[in-house]
C-alpha cells in the first residue's frame, strides 16, 4: 500500500485513540472540583459522605483516563514529525511555537500537579489540594486551547506570510485567534462537557441498576443529567455557528457535509443518501426541500456552492457526509435523553428509585455516546479538510514521510492492536470500578509491608 495512505491511517488511528481520553478529562477535572466542593460544603453527614464517595470513584476514573491520555499523547508528539516531516519543514515556524507553548504552559502544569491532586490528600491541606485540582483542570483546558489553535489555523490559516516557500508568522494574534478558532474551541469544550456528562449518567445509571452505592450514584446521575441538559442545546447552537463559519471559509467542506454536487439555490437537506464519489451524484436521497439553505443561509432560497465548483480540491464526500449525520444525530439524541430524563426525574419526585428501569438502561446504553459524536465530528473536520493539510495551501501528499511503507504498516498494526486491547481493558475496568464502588474502595490498593518501621507523615503537615 502506498506510504501516504498508511501514514494517514496511522495518524488517524493514533489521534482517534488519543482524543477519547482528553475529551473526558477536559471536563472531568472541573467536575471533580465540583464534587469536592459539594463534599466540603455539605452539612448533612450522609450527604457529605455521598459526595466524598462520588469524588473518590471519579478520581479513580480521572486517574485512569488521564494516564491513557498522557501515554497516547506522548505517542502523538512523535507522530507529527515521523508521519509529516515535510509539514514541520514548511510550517514549522508557525506550528512549532504553538506546540511548544502547549507543552510549556499546559502539559507541565497538569503533570506537575497531578501527583498532588491524586495522592496529596494526606500530605497537603485542603486549600492546597483544591488549588492543585484547579490547576490540573485548568491545564487540560490550556492543552485544548493551544492544540485547537493549531488545528484551526490549519483549517483557516491567517496571520502568515510565505517567503521562499516557507511560512513565516506575521501576527501571532491573528494566527492564534484565526477565524475558526473561537468556534472550534467552544464546540470542543462543550463536546467534552457532554462526553463527560454522559459518562457520569451512564455509569451511575449502571450502578443504580446493579444496586451499588445508590446514594452517591443518584447524586452523580442528577448532576450528569443537569449538565447534559444544559450543554446539549448549547452544543447545537455552537455547532450551528461553527457551520456558518465553515460555510464562509471552507465552502467545499459544507458541500461535502450536505452532499451538494451542483451549486443550488434553495438546497434541500438530505436526511439520507448514498453519495457516490465516482459518479459524482447521490443515490437514494430522502430530502427536506429548502431546509439546508434555510439553516445555512437563514434564507429558504439562499445559494449553496456545490462540489463541482472545486475540481480536484474537495474532500471525499461519503465519509464526511455520514460522519456529520452521526454527530448531529447523537447531538439530538443526547438532547432528548437528557431532557426527557430530567423531566421524568422531576415527575418521580426526584427519586431515582422510581425511575422506570428501561430508562436507566437507556442511560447506561448512552455511556459512550459522547465518544461517538466527538469522533464523528473530528472526522468531519479532518477528512473535510482533505486533500490539504493546511487548507488551500499545502497538500497532504506533499509533506508525507519517506519512511518505507512496510515500516509504517508494521507499526500501524502494533499500535492498533495495543490500542484495541487497552480500550477493552479501559471499558472493562470502568465497569468493574462502578460495580465495586461500595466495597471498601481500596481493597486492593497498596499495603506496605507489615511490621516494618514506617515514617508516616502527619496529616496536613505542610498546610
Amino acid at each position, binding site marked *: 500500500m502506498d506510504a501516504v495512505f498508511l501514514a494517514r491511517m496511522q495518524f488517524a488511528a493514533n489521534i482517534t485513540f488519543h482524543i477519547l481520553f482528553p475529551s473526558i478529562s477536559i471536563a472531568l477535572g472541573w467536575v471533580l472540583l465540583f464534587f469536592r466542593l459539594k463534599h466540603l460544603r455539605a452539612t448533612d453527614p450522609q450527604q457529605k459522605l455521598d459526595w466524598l464517595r462520588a469524588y473518590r470513584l471519579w478520581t479513580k476514573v480521572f486517574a485512569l483516563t488521564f494516564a491513557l491520555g498522557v501515554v497516547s499523547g506522548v505517542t502523538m508528539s512523535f507522530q507529527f514529525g515521523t508521519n509529516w516531516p515535510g509539514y514541520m519543514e514548511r510550517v514549522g515556524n508557525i506550528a512549532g511555537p504553538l506546540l511548544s507553548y502547549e507543552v510549556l504552559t499546559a502539559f507541565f502544569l497538569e503533570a506537575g500537579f497531578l501527583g498532588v491532586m491524586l*495522592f*496529596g490528600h494526606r500530605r497537603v491541606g485542603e486549600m492546597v489540594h483544591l488549588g492543585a485540582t484547579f490547576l490540573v483542570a485548568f491545564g487540560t483546558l490550556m492543552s485544548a486551547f493551544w492544540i485547537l489553535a493549531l488545528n484551526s489555523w490549519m483549517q483557516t490559516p491567517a496571520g502568515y506570510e510565505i517567503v521562499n516557500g516557507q511560512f513565516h508568522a506575521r501576527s501571532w494574534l491573528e494566527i492564534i485567534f484565526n477565524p475558526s478558532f473561537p468556534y472550534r474551541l467552544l464546540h470542543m469544550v462543550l463536546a467534552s462537557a457532554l462526553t463527560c456528562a454522559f459518562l457520569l449518567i451512564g455509569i451511575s445509571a449502571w450502578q443504580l441498576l446493579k444496586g451499588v452505592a445508590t446514594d452517591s450514584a443518584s447524586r452523580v446521575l442528577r448532576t450528569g443529567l443537569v449538565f447534559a441538559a444544559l450543554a446539549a442545546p448549547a452544543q447545537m447552537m455552537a455547532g450551528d455557528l461553527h457551520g456558518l463559519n465553515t460555510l464562509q471559509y471552507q465552502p467545499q467542506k459544507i458541500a461535502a457535509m450536505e452532499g451538494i454536487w451542483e451549486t443550488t439555490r434553495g438546497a434541500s437537506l438530505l436526511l439520507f443518501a448514498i453519495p457516490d464519489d465516482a459518479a459524482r451524484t447521490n443515490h437514494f436521497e430522502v430530502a427536506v426541500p429548502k431546509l439546508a439553505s434555510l439553516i445555512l443561509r437563514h434564507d429558504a432560497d439562499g445559494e449553496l456552492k456545490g462540489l463541482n465548483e472545486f475540481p480536484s480540491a474537495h474532500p471525499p464526500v461519503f465519509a464526511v457526509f455520514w460522519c456529520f449525520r452521526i454527530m448531529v444525530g447523537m447531538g439530538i439524541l443526547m438532547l432528548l435523553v437528557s431532557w426527557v430524563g430530567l423531566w421524568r426525574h422531576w415527575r418521580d419526585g426526584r427519586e431515582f428509585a422510581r425511575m422506570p428501569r428501561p430508562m436507566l438502561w437507556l442511560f447506561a446504553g448512552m455511556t459512550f455516546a459522547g465518544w461517538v459524536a466527538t469522533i464523528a465530528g473530528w472526522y468531519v473536520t479532518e477528512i473535510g479538510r482533505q486533500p490539504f493539510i493546511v487548507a488551500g495551501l499545502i497538500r497532504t501528499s506533499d509533506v508525507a514521510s519517506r519512511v518505507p511503507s512496510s515500516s509504517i504498516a508494521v507499526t500501524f498494526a502494533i499500535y492498533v492492536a495495543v490500542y484495541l486491547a487497552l480500550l477493552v481493558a479501559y471499558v472493562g475496568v470502568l465497569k468493574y470500578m462502578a460495580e465495586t464502588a461500595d466495597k471498601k474502595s481500596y481493597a486492593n490498593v497498596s499495603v506496605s509491608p507489615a511490621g516494618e518501621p514506617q515514617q508516616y507523615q502527619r496529616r496536613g503537615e505542610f498546610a
Partner: protein
Amino acid sequence: MSFDELLPLIFIGLMGVSLLVYVVSDGYDLGVGMLMHRATPEERDTMVASIGPFWDANETWLVLGVGLLLVAFPKAHGLVLSELYLPTALMLVGLILRGAAFDFRVKAKADRKAMWDRLFIAGSMLASVCQGWMLGRYISGFGEGWNYPIFAGAIAVALPMAYALLGATWLVMKTDGALQHKAVEWSKIAWPPMVLGLILISMATPWISETVRERWFTLPAMIAVASIPVTAGIALVTVRVLLGSPTVRGGLCWLPFALLVLVFFLSFLGLSYSIYPFVVIDRLTVWEAASSPDSLKVILIGVCVTLPVIVAYTAFSYRVFRGKTIELDYA
C-alpha cells in the same frame, strides 16, 4: 557571534537539558519498573507508590525534548526519527504499556493484577532497551557496517542497567525496612554492568567516530576534559563504597542516588563535548538544522517565562512527597 547565531546554540542547550532531565527522571522510574520482577507483590505496591506522583511529569520532559528538536531543528528531527523509526515506535509501545499498566494494576480485578504487573515490567524494559539502542545509533552517527549494530546493542544493554542502578538507589532513598535492604543488594548487582558499560562506551565512541577521536585526544584540551571521566569515576567508586557500608540505610540514603545523577550529568557533558557543533554527528550542524530565528525567539520568551515556574512547582511536588514512601490512596 550575533544573537541570531547564538539562538540555535541556546536551543540545543535547552533540548539537551530537557533530554538529560528526562533520562535521569524517567530513568529512575523505568529502573524501578524493571526491578519489580525481583520484588514480592507487597513490595511492588510500595515501589509503584514511590514513583506514582512523579512519572507523568517525568515523561513530559521527553515531550519537551522531542518537541524542541521538532520545532527548533526540524531537519535533524526528520533525519533522526526516520533513521530510528522502528525503535521509536517500540519505545512508545513500551511507554504506553507501562503508563497504562501503572494505573490498571490497582484498579482492575485483583486477579488481573499480576498480569498488569508483568506488562508494567515488560513495558519498562522495552522502553529502556529501545532508548539504549537509539542512543547507540545516534552517537555513532547512524553508521553502516558490522561494528555499528554491536555498539548499539551494547548500549541497549548498558542503558537499562544504568536505569536499574538509578532506580535501585532511588528505592534506597525512598523506602525502608526489608525493601530498602533488597534495594541495596540490587544496586550492588547493577553496579558492575553499568560501570562496564560506561567504560566500553567511552572507549568505543572515539574508536567508532573519527570526529570524536580528534576532539578528545588532542592536547591541551585532553587534559581539561579528562576531568570529566575522572570525576565520574570517583563518584561511581564512592557509590560502590557507600553501598557496602551500613550508613547507606541511615542518614546518607540519598547520597548514592545523588552521585549517580552527577554521573549522568557528567556523561551528558562528555557526550555533548564529543558531538558539538553537530546535531547529527558528521552530518548536520546546529546552524544548518535550525529553524528561523523569529520563531525561535517566540519560543524562547515562553521558555524564559515558564521554565522557572515549572522548576518551582516540580520542586514543590517533590517536597510534598519527600521522605519515605507511604501507600498511595485517593482519599
